[in-house]
């Protein structure tokens, strides 16, 4: 088969899609991607195309998520579900090391991740941006060995969004819906007049896989079709978020009365942080065996909405839900920029969809802009 160069475009016929899965599997990848489970599209093992959410879509709004049948047989005709790729790169539970007692001392053996490389199938543009955000957290000043081992070997097969979800605002966050960078392969699913995929070769690793997939030359019209699909998606975003001056807007108004209003609704349930692709907070557990001879150090997802998160001596620093919601939103949209040189928000809308009371951060930011301010420029002494 022909040599593919990065930047090349080809056509993958719908009927040949299983060949892509096969090529990934043959190359040794563990393929994970969208699959229907428990009434939602979640990320899991994809062994065959039947595992994909063929003919399903999701309808989303604040506090609402429903699967619906599509009128066509699209493979990627949905937006994003409650899972993100974070669950593979930064698992919700992960062993960091094992320690064994040796006489009066102990020896510690760090965990080594030597699982097969993963192929992420169906990564949205906003999710590529999310991984970029996570890279700055876990693979920046300090390298998280587990994250690095998984991320550096993962292959990313992006799929451009053919529709916008009700809570999507990637256009506002400049993370989508078009796939621009970071992909190994990018697909655009074209449903009419016939069902096929436009394939963008994003990296040599992507090209290596595609070398084993039957592809056809792409015409200018195919490329234009993909462009117009993305443009249509961009024009139908469910939400918008005005990000101008957002850093100072949030950081200078810790006493804004709106925080009290949102805190009355917030349940501190942590859903927003669990579904967020970039939330990275964790805690550790010391898990000894019954004899007390071997101990495992486990890391698990934690949330700034948990009261114990800021436990200090007998107290917590952030006791009120107000302070915890303020921390989350201010961190995500403002102080994240100081810490990592980027916003922590990618505009995927998950936190809006999965909030049981439908708190919508785009609405909160808008209110922080317009509501009367009690203490305009931060501070407000105790």
């Amino acid at each position, binding site marked *: 088969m022909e040599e593919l160069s990065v930047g090349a475009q080809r056509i993958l016929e719908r009927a040949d899609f299983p060949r892509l899965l096969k090529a990934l599997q043959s190359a040794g990848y563990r393929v994970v991607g969208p699959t229907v489970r428990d009434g939602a599209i979640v990320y899991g093992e994809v062994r065959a195309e039947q595992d994909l959410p063929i003919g399903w879509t999701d309808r989303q709004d604040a506090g609402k998520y429903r699967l619906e049948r599509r009128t066509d047989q699209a493979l990627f005709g949905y937006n994003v579900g409650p899972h993100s790729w974070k669950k593979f790169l930064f698992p919700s539970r992960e062993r960091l090391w094992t320690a064994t*007692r040796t006489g009066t001392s102990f020896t510690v053996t760090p965990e080594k991740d030597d699982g097969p490389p993963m192929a992420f199938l169906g990564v949205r543009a906003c999710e590529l941006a999310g991984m970029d955000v996570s890279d700055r957290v876990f693979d920046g000043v300090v390298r998280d060995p587990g994250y690095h081992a998984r991320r550096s070997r993962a292959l990313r097969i992006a799929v451009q969004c053919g529709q916008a979800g009700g809570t999507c605002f990637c256009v506002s966050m400049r993370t989508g819906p078009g796939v621009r960078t970071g992909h190994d392969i990018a697909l655009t699913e074209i449903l009419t007049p016939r069902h096929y995929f436009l394939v963008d070769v994003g990296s040599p690793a992507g090209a290596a896989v595609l070398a084993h997939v039957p592809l056809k030359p792409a015409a200018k019209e195919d490329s234009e079709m993909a462009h117009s699909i993305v443009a249509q998606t961009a024009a139908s975003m469910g939400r918008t978020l005005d990000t101008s001056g957002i850093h100072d807007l949030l950081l200078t108004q810790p006493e804004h009365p709106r925080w009290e209003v949102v805190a009355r609704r917030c349940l501190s349930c942590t859903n927003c942080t669990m579904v967020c692709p970039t939330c990275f907070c964790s805690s550790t557990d010391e898990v000894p065996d019954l004899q007390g001879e071997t101990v495992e150090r486990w890391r698990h997802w934690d949330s700034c909405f948990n009261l114990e998160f800021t436990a*200090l001596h007998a107290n917590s620093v952030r006791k009120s839900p107000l302070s915890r919601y303020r921390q989350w939103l201010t961190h995500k949209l403002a102080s994240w920029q100081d810490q990592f040189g980027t916003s922590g928000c990618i505009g995927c809308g998950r936190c809006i969809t999965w909030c049981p009371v439908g708190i919508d951060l785009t609405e909160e930011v808008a209110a922080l802009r317009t509501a009367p301010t009690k203490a305009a420029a931060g501070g407000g002494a*105790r």
Partner: protein
Amino acid sequence: MASETHSATSAGSATESPFTPEPYVVERRVVETADTVTMVLKPAGGRGVPAFLPGQFNMVYRFGVGEVPISISGDPNRPDELVHTVRSAGKISDALTKTLPGETLGVRGPYGVGWPLQRAEHQDVVIVAGGLGLPPLRPLLYELLAHRDRYERVEIIYGARSPKDLVHYEDVQKWRTRGDLRLQVTVDAAGREWYGDVGLVTARIPDARFDPPRTVAFLCGPEIMMRLTAQALSTLGVPEASIWLSMERNMKCAVGLCGHCQWGPAFVCRDGPVFRYADVKRMFSVREL
């Protein structure tokens, strides 16, 4: 954070796990108060103790129980031993205080930025410690007294809840008898056995001798104490940029990955624990930040 850092020492190389503790044997254990002990640790297996800066901390681990951040309280010029002063405040710190000589603890670090002592050269130095705020300041005092001629007047104000809660008492007695520094010790409450001052550390500031515009201050203690002390010093004319304080927050990883210690844009583990008052003054006044 905008605060300038003082050569933060990163632990381990890029390929190593940043979460792995190294074994240290407890060599000596000094009971400071009813709930606080000082432990002198030596690395197991003949390794050296990593160099540290006054004000830095380690994650100290007890096998089967867990790890917590503890400031280093020993002499930075004694590279053969590592000293930690621990108060029993929770399950893990309680287990640490009960570790006996000969037993092994785990240590990883040192972490964070230290006290910028070089900024105090040719200046008056005011050190204010509240309760267990003294241990993180003790390495600074050792370093300062090892090069006493570099600094002008040195004033120490040390407050504790009661006479029984005073730590590092031997050092305190030694400092008291030195002619080249002044030490005021005050307690919140005391019985007849106490001949010293009673009241908050801020009440001792008027008796301290220093030239405010040419003074560098180092504060460590409960947040309320640091806030009131910084305000009092600032009112007297000590520049806000010359007041340094050490923050405490919940920490799980100490390397900026777990998120717990965030204070505004700062990760206390990495950007602190030592901060310049001028940089954090505004955050200091926000409740539950």
